[in-house]
């Protein structure tokens, strides 16, 4: 009798916990397996020389050798830091390009009197296109000699055709064009949502002061879109750091590793060269770099919220 009441009082006291954990128990377990255990596994592997398939036999712990290799004068270090450079370049160009273009188009669509929805629909759909199709289009548009449309334009302007994907100086820039043109649409949609959410009265009040659209945009609209800008920045960073599709499908990291992104390098080390330990070490150095960046970004962005009340 005594025991039962103790149990029921326990049940009453922890009612919320029991419900909550019984609902999220399985997802949490799942998360533990596929994120926590996976994370720990990769961390442990990064200290080993695992290279004969994904098994633990004949694997030895080699302490920090994989990491030391990344920070000393070795081919691996050269490859890794060049990949980090490519990824950073990609991320920065995409971040700035996509967000500026998205903001601009969102602003222009908002200021249209008629047909805004049509343009939104027209501009958005390419972001649904997969990396495979994007890569194929890049190969068509930037075909070497006079087969591609870009080279045709260059020839028509009196220039010499460029071997876009074979020239180490142009390859990465040529790769960026299609993802830029197809990728800014998603940003555009989020910016458009934010721009539409700003009450009209704000702009009307601003029009009484000045007639310069640019000024109103910079002083009124932009600060009010802070949340959307932060969200898009975050999305661009996440997408940018794991970019692999265009590189793998078009150039496979060539020429001269000039288009080898970090993700491609890790994919190649783990699944093609089977240097799993080294690949995991690469991934963790990248992880710490990203962690540092996001901590700095958190510090800079603070925690204010935009509200229109």
């Amino acid at each position, binding site marked *: 009798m005594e025991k039962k009441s103790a149990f029921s009082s326990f049940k009453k006291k922890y009612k919320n916990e029991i419900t909550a954990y019984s609902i999220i128990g399985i997802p949490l377990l799942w998360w533990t397996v596929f994120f926590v255990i996976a*994370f720990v596994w990769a961390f442990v592997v990064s200290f080993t020389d695992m290279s004969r398939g994904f098994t633990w036999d004949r694997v030895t712990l080699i302490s920090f050798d994989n990491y030391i290799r990344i920070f000393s004068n070795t081919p691996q270090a050269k490859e890794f830091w060049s990949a980090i450079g490519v990824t950073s370049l990609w991320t920065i160009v995409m971040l700035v390009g996509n967000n500026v273009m998205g903001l601009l188009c969102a602003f222009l669509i908002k200021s249209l009197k008629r047909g805004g929805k049509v343009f939104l629909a027209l501009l958005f759909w390419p972001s649904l296109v*997969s990396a495979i199709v994007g890569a194929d289009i890049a190969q068509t548009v930037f075909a070497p000699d006079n087969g591609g449309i870009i080279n045709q334009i260059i020839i028509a302007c009196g220039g010499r055709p460029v071997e876009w994907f074979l020239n180490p100086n142009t390859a990465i820039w040529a790769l960026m064009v299609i993802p830029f043109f197809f990728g800014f649409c998603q940003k555009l949609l989020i910016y458009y949502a934010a721009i539409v959410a700003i009450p009209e009265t704000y702009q009307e009040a601003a029009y009484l002061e000045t007639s310069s659209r640019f000024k109103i945009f910079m002083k009124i609209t932009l600060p009010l879109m802070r949340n959307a800008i932060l969200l898009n920045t975050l999305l661009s960073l996440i997408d940018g750091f794991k970019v692999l599709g265009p590189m793998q499908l078009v150039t496979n990291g060539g020429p001269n590793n000039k288009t080898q992104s970090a993700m491609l390098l890790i994919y190649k080390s783990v699944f093609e060269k089977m240097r799993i330990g080294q690949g995991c070490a690469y991934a963790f150095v990248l992880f710490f770099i990203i962690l540092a960046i996001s901590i700095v970004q958190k510090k800079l962005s603070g925690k204010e919220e935009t509200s229109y009340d």
Partner: protein
Amino acid sequence: MIKSLKWRDYVFHTFCYVFLILVAFLQCFPFWLKLVDATHSPEFLPEIGKVYYWFADFTMQNFGTAIQASRFFQALGVSLLHTCSFTFLSLIVVVCVGYVLAKIRFRGSGIVAGMLMMTLMIPGEVMLAANYKLTIFFGINTNTLGIILPGIVNVFGIFLVRQYMANIPDSVLEAASLDGCGEVKKLFWIVFPMSGPIIVTYIILTFIGTWNEYLFPMILHDASHSDWLYTLQLAMRQFNPKFGGAADNYVRSAGMILITIPIIVMYLVFQKYILNQSNISGLK
């Protein structure tokens, strides 16, 4: 003064239209080139150094060839299975966890949310090898489960949904509790219908993302060559000359058109929801 303002308005609007039409044209034009390419008959010999902007020697034959060479319908089936079951399972997870984190006050909720939040910062690279190892460990690396199960706890989605559900008034839920509604019942009969917009947004985002997913299926498929991992993206990859595909240019273009069609159809059907800006403003 007013006159000059009107004149400037006129110039500005013209600029808007010209700029947007130009951008839309630049986006659509490559697909037009692909379509033209895809409809040349196999015997058609293009002039060297000429880009064709209009149909020449029109035929639909290449589409048939592409469908046969890539085992299109089999791949379509696998892709549909993969995308639909992934979207469904991850939706259930996301809604349940999002609801619990948003609406139930329990000890440890901060810790759970914080731990989940940490996962957002881990780049996909770190998980690549480990997830592959896990699929082998669970014996699902040779069937569709291998590409469905690892990702179904979608942390980004959880926070998306939690944000939205947090705005549902507590009074509604309390009223339901007074009427004797349990938590699970509340979730599926009250909160679920009330979060319609964010759920639609989540379904669309996940569907598109999964449909276009290519890295992890490729890793598993290249290791086992199982038909259950042969998604549409991988089917079209074989036309990429880099992967040793024998298909010529026209068939390849036809393949690219074929693979884009399902997404376009989905876009046309769900356009209203995809572009509905009020859904996305929940993204704050």
